[in-house]
């Protein structure tokens, strides 16, 4: 049973019916799902959640569907990894990774938003699913559209990693690569959306889509033993995830599922595309868009973040901050995570790990605080970033002498 009352403008609070719309007709502020929290208080308990499935659908009552989910039934409830080795390396004694690099079905947190968006698009009666994507969203939309048996038409900026392209085409998706940046793709999609009656998951389905991200925050709190962390370090592109994690924690508090929320929320970006962290550092509420993003962290290279204003507000209201790292620091952080925890994340995960290390060095994150690093994507998808980082493996003949020669000279087993 649905607990959605409709949509409400985040800015002027005008209310709208539950439809595939995403901006306030009056002030152009973003629309959000308006839930009946009084009704939810009566039915959502720790016990009701714990008896649900081991997926994001254990929080189904808090997600904006009117009918049971149609796709992505196994999405979410990914591991919260206690990262003792990485913590030791960067001086944090209570460090965790929320590891969506193993999310189902396409190995990124985008599976959460897409399972909600496509299920909602089906409720609305759409037969074609579309999106503007930096790659991970494309992968998930392609996979879950295939699962739903619908058509898809997906738009990406040119120059994406092979894993993101093959990882979209394999599902039979129609994929169009646009000469330009993600922001160019996004603008084109909004114009296409005005002419074609498709479900653009991150445009007209956006209010519902975005709330899929809340499950990432719910899981962090539940997996910490119904507690919110002292710090959470979040990758920022469009700034949606950072606001939804914050919203998730506060909904849990409102519903009495956690006692308090004193979490500092930190925004993490790549220096080559850092409009949000730059504004935070400058103490400004206004985003100066980045015209030509230039970073290996392509999945978060959005120069004109739609929710950037809210990302800045979330970091500042929570007492957090924003920090960014160079491409070299990203690669070194990806290696550090892999070598200490055995987790191979994509470049965006290098950003959050690298930024956490920096924040610990700056003293903004204290050694004995509980800190969660968001790992939102899988390293196998962005292998290009690591080309030339490692020497090729030694090739030998299948003879014991050949091995002993190499062993004596260079191996340290």
């Amino acid at each position: 049973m649905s607990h959605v009352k409709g949509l409400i403008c985040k800015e002027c609070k005008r209310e709208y019916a539950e439809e595939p719309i995403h901006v306030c007709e009056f002030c152009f502020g973003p629309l959000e799902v308006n839930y009946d929290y009084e009704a939810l208080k009566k039915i959502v308990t720790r016990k009701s959640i714990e008896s649900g499935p081991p997926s994001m659908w254990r929080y189904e009552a808090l997600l904006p569907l009117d009918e049971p989910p149609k796709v992505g039934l196994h999405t979410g409830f990914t591991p919260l990894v206690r990262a003792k080795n990485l913590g030791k390396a960067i001086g944090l004694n209570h460090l965790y990774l929320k590891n969506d690099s193993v999310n189902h079905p396409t190995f990124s947190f985008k599976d959460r938003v897409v399972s909600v968006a496509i299920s909602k698009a089906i409720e609305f009666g759409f037969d074609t699913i579309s999106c503007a994507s930096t790659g991970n969203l494309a992968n998930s939309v392609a996979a879950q559209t295939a699962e739903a048996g619908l058509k898809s038409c997906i738009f990406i900026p040119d120059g994406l990693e092979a894993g993101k392209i093959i990882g979209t085409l394999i599902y039979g998706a129609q994929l169009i690569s646009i000469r330009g940046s993600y922001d160019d793709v996004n603008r084109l999609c909004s114009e296409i959306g005005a002419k074609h009656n498709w479900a653009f998951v991150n445009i007209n389905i956006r209010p519902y889509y975005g709330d899929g991200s809340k499950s990432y925050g719910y899981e962090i709190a539940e997996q910490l033993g119904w507690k919110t962390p002292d710090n959470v370090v979040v990758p920022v592109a469009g700034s949606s995830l950072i606001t939804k994690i914050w919203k998730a924690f506060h909904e849990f508090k409102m519903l009495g599922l956690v006692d308090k929320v004193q979490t500092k929320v930190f925004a993490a970006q790549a220096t080559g595309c850092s409009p949000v962290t730059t504004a935070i550092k400058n103490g400004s509420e206004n985003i100066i868009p980045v015209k030509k993003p230039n970073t290996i962290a392509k999945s978060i290279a959005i120069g004109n973040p739609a929710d950037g204003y809210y990302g800045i507000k979330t970091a500042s209201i929570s007492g957090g901050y924003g920090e960014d790292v160079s491409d070299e620091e990203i690669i070194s952080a990806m290696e550090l995570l892999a070598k200490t925890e055995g987790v191979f994340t994509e470049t965006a995960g290098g950003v959050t790990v690298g930024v956490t290390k920096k924040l610990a060095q700056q003293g903004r994150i204290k050694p004995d605080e509980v800190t969660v690093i968001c790992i939102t994507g899988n390293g196998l998808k962005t292998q290009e970033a690591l080309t030339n980082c490692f020497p090729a493996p030694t090739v030998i003949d299948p003879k014991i002498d050949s091995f002993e020669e190499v062993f004596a000279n260079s191996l340290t087993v």
Partner: protein
Amino acid sequence: MSVKVRVPTPLMKLTNNQSEVTAEGTTISEILNNLESQFAGIKDRICDENGTPRRFINIYLNEEDIRFLDGESTAVKDGDEISIIPAIAGGA
């Protein structure tokens, strides 16, 4: 100076359901004022009380965000195309 202006869906109620209209002016500001004279009430929707474009509106001149040009003072010439587009979420 006559330019083509693409109007977002939420404003089409004010433009007799046209997604593209023509407007006259030599700068973005003048274009917005000209739109207002044709379609009463439209400027209030695009701009805040100070007359500057709202936070959640992006204006493009020939595919270029006017924030990368001279903002509302950006000069326009005959045959230019302007898009008024709501900000949209995407990425992580």
